[in-house]
């Protein structure tokens, strides 16, 4: 039987790392993710894990050492935020191309310019096309549960992809919550032993990893990488179900709140979904047919499932905690629009850019969004893209 403990999001992640007990962790500190590796370093120092902890000199080397260590034949993890992830960018692509299941906790934070240590999703969105599975959590419990699932997902033999466990900086990473922490043995049983695939350290079966790949093979290799993502989507579903069977908390690609008969709905990632849930409950009490699609699995992007969930709505708003400069919207908006379009559904849509650099998202602002959706359904003209809570 597990136990309920008051934990900050970062500590919940470190606790899951202790239970999973990876072979190598190579990391470099950056706020607000620092506490993850700091807490974990103490576990190492106290002999609570068998991990070889490598305190490298930069995030670039952290990700490099993790990819190399994974290729060498073992389980690897680390954590970062914002500029740290940006410095890893080059190696993120290599991790997924080499199909190494590195598990990275990304504590979401705003990317400089103008330095800001608080939450937004510009870091995760910047890594959108790097080929990583990206799972977004809403609270400390999910940060803990997701890391365990991320490990199982990425390491599946039909997947073998790196995975990001994303949680909102400060909002989740530094908030205390009561977290149900499962027994060490149960967590170990869930993730299972690491299964190396062609470990580099197998001296009797030498192979060359990361060669020069020219016009005659590169595209075929990229295609084979592409084909791993449907399997990854399936893995998110299956591991979420298995997690539910084992621990009583089931997860899927997304969480649908009052979506069955919703006429107006919001799509959101991360901690904002928690606030949306309260607003939806209030609106429902007033007889408004409001709903929420909390997207959990951002990569692979569940196109069909999103279209299916939203097709019955009269209007949909996307909450974007990042801007796509020059793109005219946030990064999530066109993806949701494309999903609906590909399904053949024409649903009017609005986009809200909010919470950049940790700007608060009070329930009243989410109320404004649902209000706008109601007005749009009523035939009023509403601007397609708006910035929420910004001083004009």
């Amino acid at each position, binding site marked *: 039987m597990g136990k309920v403990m008051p934990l900050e999001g970062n500590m919940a992640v470190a606790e899951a790392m202790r239970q999973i007990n990876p*072979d*190598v962790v*190579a990391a470099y500190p950056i706020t607000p993710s620092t506490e993850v590796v700091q807490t974990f370093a103490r576990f190492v120092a106290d002999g609570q894990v*068998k*991990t*070889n902890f*490598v*305190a*490298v*000199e*930069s995030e*670039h*080397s952290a990700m*490099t*050492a*993790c*990819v*190399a*260590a*994974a*290729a*060498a*034949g*073992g389980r*690897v993890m680390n954590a970062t935020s914002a500029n740290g992830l940006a410095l890893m960018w*080059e*190696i993120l692509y*290599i991790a997924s191309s080499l199909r190494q299941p590195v598990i990275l906790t990304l504590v979401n934070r705003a990317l400089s310019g103008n330095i800001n240590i608080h939450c937004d999703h510009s870091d995760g969105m910047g890594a959108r096309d790097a080929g990583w599975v990206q799972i977004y959590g809403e609270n400390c419990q999910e940060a803990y549960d997701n890391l365990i699932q991320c490990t199982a997902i990425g390491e599946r033999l039909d997947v073998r992809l790196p995975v990001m466990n994303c949680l909102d900086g400060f909002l989740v990473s530094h908030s205390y919550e009561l977290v149900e922490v499962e027994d060490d043995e149960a967590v170990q049983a869930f993730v299972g032993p690491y299964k190396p695939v062609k470990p*580099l*350290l*197998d*001296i009797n079966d*030498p*192979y*060359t*990893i*990361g*060669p*020069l*790949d*020219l016009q*005659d*093979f590169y595209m075929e290799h990229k295609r084979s990488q592409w084909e791993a993502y449907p399997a990854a989507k399936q893995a998110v579903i299956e591991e979420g179900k298995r997690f539910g069977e084992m621990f009583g908390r089931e997860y899927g690609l997304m969480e649908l709140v009052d979506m069955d008969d919703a006429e107006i709905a919001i799509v959101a990632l991360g901690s904002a979904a928690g606030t949306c849930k309260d607003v939806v409950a209030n609106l429902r009490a007033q007889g408004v047919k409001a709903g929420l699609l909390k997207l959990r699995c951002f990569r692979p992007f569940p196109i069909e499932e999103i279209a299916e969930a939203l097709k019955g709505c009269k209007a949909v708003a996307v909450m974007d905690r990042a801007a796509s400069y020059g793109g005219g919207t946030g990064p999530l908006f066109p993806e949701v629009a494309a999903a609906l379009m590909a399904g053949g559904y024409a649903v009017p849509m609005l986009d809200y850019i909010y919470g950049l650099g940790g700007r608060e998202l009070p329930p009243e602002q989410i109320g404004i969004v649902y209000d706008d959706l109601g007005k749009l359904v009523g035939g009023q003209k509403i601007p397609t893209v708006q910035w929420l809570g910004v001083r004009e």
Partner: protein
Amino acid sequence: MPKNLKQYAQVPTRLTGGHRLCPGCGEPTAARQVLMATDKPVVVANATGCFEVSTTIMPYTAWAVPWMHIAFENAAATVSGIEAMYVSQKAQGNIPADADYRFVAFAGDGGTYDIGLQALSGAAERGHQFLYVCLNNEAYMNTGVQRSSASPYGAHTTTSPSGSHSPGKKAFQKDLTAIMAAHDIPYVAQSISGRWRDLTAKAEKAFECGGPAFINVLTPCPLGWIADASESVNLAQLAADCCVWPLYEVENGVWKLTYKPKEKLPIDEYLKKQGRFKHLFKGAEGEAVRAKMQEYVDTKWELLKQKCGEA
């Protein structure tokens, strides 16, 4: 114990003949001499550059040992990660306790002196057990002979071209071997790809020193140096004889010359055989540049001799 040439020839081939480096390239020679220097299992990490692209053109590989490439600036971080996993697996008993692997990183001067210096410095400071070999051809050859911080003063490269207003490269090269020695790691050395005994002896010490080791090997590049492919070995030897590239080692902090030229030759002997210095043999300006180069070499040589207790 160093082996004789016949014994070395019997060490299994780790880098096979199926690579596509240019004729006369100093890199594969140096790498083979390094890899011959141990009988232990070897795992290789490689930075982007001529050596990497030419030995692993998909679907072929010239490598008969485990080999990994991640990117340009991170051969040291790559080898750190591999070694870290080895240490972890050994401690857990997943690799037998009596296993005794060696880890080598190969990188060009660009991937070492410039973009890769941070990762190399970090890995050395952390004390991973690995040998880092810089295959130093004094420019970015793989991308078309651009200057690096290892390129000599006065050298013509595509980003430091000689011209009516320029003598070629305007800065002296960085003394990376000394920088690595300043890390106080157990073994640091400079060698050339031609003298097999010098390089293999150094590599043997490096492999067995019990910590991080660094060897900077001058590897002539006929293409970038604009020299005859048949001259490579001679050019490397001339670099040592002119003291442009002295051969020495720093073992546990003790500096030692490993080759003392019988007669220190003037640098012109070395420069005149290479097209990259051709412009320095025209006019008074070129002569002034050569004089400055000679002065630099002489000063560095005297300082090195002092460090080695030879002055």
